C-alpha cells in the first residue's frame, strides 16, 4: 500500500470526473441535465484546487461558479423554458464549428501543458505536507499590492515586477460596478405606451389647435399615466385631467 501514490489517484479521480462531466454536458440532450453535469464538472475542478492545496481558491470556485454562475444559468433556462429548449436540436453546421473551435483550444492547451519544465512535477509521496499550508493571508496581501510570498527576492529587477495585484483588483472592481449598474438599468420597470392611447393622441391633436401649448403636456401625461395603469383607466384619467373638451368619451 505504500507504493500507491494517493495524490495521483485522487488527481485522476477528480480529473476524470471533470472530463466525464464535460463530455456529458456536450452529449446530453436535456438542457437541465447539461446544467447539472456542468455543476459536476466545476465541482471536480474545485476538488482539483483543494488537492493542490489551494483551499481559498477551491472555495472561491464553488462559491462563484457552482453557487453563482450555474444557478444563474439554470434560472435563465427555467424562466425561458420552452419545449424545444429541453431537447436542443443541433444542426450539422453547429457541430462543425464547435469541433473546429474545440480542436484549436485543445491544441493551444496541450502546447501550454507540455511546455512546463520537468522540475515542476506532481509531489512525490514523501513530499506531501501533512496539513494545508495557509494561503489566504498571502492571497489577500497580494491583492492589496504586497507579494508576501516573494519578499526575499534578491534580484531588484525582478522585485519591481512583483508588486502585487492591486491594479487588476481595482479594474475588476470597477468592471463589476459597471456590470451591476448595467444590470439594474436593464431590469428597471419600463413604461409602455399602449397603442390606443397613441391613437387617441393622434386623433386629438387636429382638434386641439387652439391649445397647442398644452399638447406637449398631454403627451407627457399620457406617458406618465400609462406606466402603471391599464389603457382603459388611462383613457379615463386622460380625459379627466385634460382640459374640458366636448369630445365624446368612448
Amino acid at each position, binding site marked *: 500500500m505504500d507504493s500507491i501514490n494517493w495524490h495521483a489517484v485522487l488527481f485522476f479521480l477528480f480529473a476524470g470526473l471533470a472530463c466525464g462531466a464535460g463530455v456529458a454536458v456536450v452529449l446530453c440532450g436535456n438542457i437541465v441535465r447539461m446544467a447539472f453535469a456542468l455543476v459536476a464538472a466545476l465541482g471536480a475542478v474545485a476538488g482539483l484546487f483543494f488537492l493542490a492545496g489551494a483551499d481559498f481558491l477551491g*472555495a*472561491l470556485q464553488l462559491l462563484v461558479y457552482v*453557487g453563482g454562475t450555474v444557478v444563474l444559468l439554470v434560472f435563465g433556462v427555467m424562466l425561458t423554458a420552452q419545449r424545444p429548449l429541453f431537447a436542443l436540436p443541433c444542426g450539422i453546421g453547429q457541430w462543425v464549428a464547435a469541433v473546429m473551435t474545440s480542436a484549436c483550444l485543445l491544441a493551444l492547451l496541450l502546447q501550454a501543458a507540455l511546455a512546463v519544465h520537468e522540475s515542476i512535477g506532481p509531489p512525490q509521496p514523501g513530499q506531501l505536507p501533512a496539513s494545508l499550508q495557509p494561503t489566504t*493571508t498571502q492571497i489577500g496581501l497580494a491583492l492589496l499590492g504586497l507579494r508576501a510570498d516573494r519578499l526575499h527576492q534578491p534580484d531588484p529587477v525582478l522585485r519591481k515586477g512583483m508588486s502585487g495585484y492591486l491594479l487588476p483588483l481595482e479594474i475588476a472592481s470597477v468592471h463589476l460596478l459597471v456590470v451591476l449598474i448595467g444590470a439594474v438599468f436593464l431590469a428597471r420597470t419600463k413604461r409602455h405606451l399602449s397603442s390606443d392611447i397613441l391613437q387617441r393622441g393622434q386623433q386629438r391633436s387636429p382638434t386641439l389647435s387652439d391649445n397647442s401649448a398644452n399638447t406637449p403636456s398631454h403627451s407627457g401625461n399620457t406617458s406618465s399615466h400609462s406606466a402603471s395603469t391599464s389603457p382603459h383607466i388611462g383613457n379615463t384619467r386622460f380625459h379627466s385631467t385634460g382640459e374640458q373638451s366636448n369630445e365624446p368619451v368612448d
Partner: protein
Amino acid sequence: MAERLTSWLDPSWHWLAYAIAGLVHAALLLTLALTAAAVSIWLERKVAARIQDRLGPTRVGGRYGWLQPLADGLKLLGKEDIIPAAADRLLFRAAPYLVYGATFCTYMVLPFASGWVALPLDSAVFLFLAIASLEVLGVILAGYASGSKYSLFGAMREAAQVVSYEIPMALCVVIPVMLAGTLSLSQIAEQQRGWLTNWLVFHNPFVFGAFFIYCACAVAHTNRAPFDLPEAESELVAGFMTEYSGFRWVVFFMAEYAAMFAVSGLGAILFLGGWNGPVPIADLLGLRYDVGPLAGLAGNLLGTVNFIFKCFLGVVCMVWLRWTLPRLRVDQVMTLCLKYFIPLATAMLAGCMLWQYAMKDGMLRSVGIGQREATGADRQDGSRSSSMALPDALSLPDNHRRHPIGRHAPPVRYMAAADVPPYQTASSDALRHVSPYALKCAEIRCFFPGYSARAKESHVLGAKTYNFIPREAYSPRRAGTCRFRWRKTWLHPVRSKITRSSALDL
C-alpha cells in the same frame, strides 16, 4: 487526529490512518447532525405547541414526548415511494441528497472546542459560505425534476431568495472576520476567550447591529418563516417539496434543520464566542491542557456542550420566529434584502472599519471592563496557530499595529485561575480546611442567578403528576374562565341519613 494515528503506524499504513481519521470525523459529525435534527424536530413541535397554547407531543417516549421524532421517522419510512410520471427520474432521486450533502458538509469547518474541528482551514468562513451556496442547486433540481408547476415556482422563489440573501449574510460575516483578522473559525473563537465582554458582538455597536442582520439573513437562508415562501403551505402546497414523500421528504426536512443548526453555529462562533461561555468555567476550574490531558478533555467537553447549547438557542429562536410572525410576500422579501439589509449591512461594515481606525479596542474594553492580558499561547493546548505565515521581516506601518485585536496582535490570555484573588469571607478561617478548588466551585455556583439547593424540588415544569391533565395545568390563561373547579380530592355526594320524610318534618 490523523497525525497521532500516523505516529503510531509505520509509513506504509499512513493511508489507513488518514482514512480512519476521516471516517471518525464524518461519523461524529453525522451523529451530531442527525441528532440535532431529531432534537430540533421535537423542539419545534413543543415550542410551537406552547406558543399556540397547547401541549405538543406528550405520549411517545414518556412524559414530554421526546421520542416523537422517532415515531415521525418510522412513519415516513413506511410511506409509499411515489415518483410522478412527469418527473425526471434520475434528477428527482438525486436532488434531496444534494441538498443534504451541501448542508452537512458545512459542519466540517465548525469548531466545537479548542482544536476540535474536522477541517482546520485557514479560510473556514469562506468555505462555509461557499458550501452553503450549493444548497440552492439541489432545491432548483428538486423543483425542476418534480415535473410540477408548484414545485417549479417554489424552487425559483427559493433560489431567488437564497441567492439574494447571500449578499447581506456575507457582508455581516465579513464584519467579525475584519475584527478578528482571520478567516479561520477556530482562531476567531479563540480570540473570544474569557468573559462575556470578550464576545465580538459586544465589541462595538456596529457589530451588534450586524449580528441582528445576520440573524435575519440566516433565517432567510434556511427558508424559515417569515421567509418561507418556497414552502408556503397555504399557497404552494409545499413548494418545491410538493412531490416528495416518504424518505426523500425526510432528507429535505433534516437538511432544513441541519442548516438551521449550522447557521446558528456560525453565528455563535462569529459573534457569541463559540465554545467560550459568558463565564470561563473551564479556566476558572483549571480544566486546561497545560494542567493535564484529562483536564483539557473535560474543558473541551464543557466548551462543546456550551457551543451546542448556543446552536440550540439559535434554533429555538428560529422556531419562535416561525410561529410568531406572519409570512412575508416574495416582493417584500426581495425588498427587504435589496433595499434594507444590503445598505444596512454595508453601513455596519463601514462603521466597523471606522471604529477600528479610530478606537483602540472594543467599547467595553476601552473603558476598562474585562481587560485582556496579552501573554500566553494561542491555542488551549499550547500549540501555536498555523496561520501566522508572515515573515517577521515584514514591516507594516505603525497605525496597523495599534489595534490589539487581529492577527498581528500579541496572543491573548484571559484571567487564569491564579489571578483570581483568594476567597474572602468573614469566616474564612473556618473554611480554611476546604480546598480552594471547592471554594471556587461554590463561588461560581452562587454566581448563577436562581440557583438554589432545592432547585430539584422547585423544577419549573412542575413536579405534580396527574392521571389526566386539568385545564389549570396546561392552559393557565383559560384556567380562570371555567366555573368548574378541579378538586384535588373528589367529595362523594353526601348520603345522609336524612330522608325525605324527615326533611319535610312530617
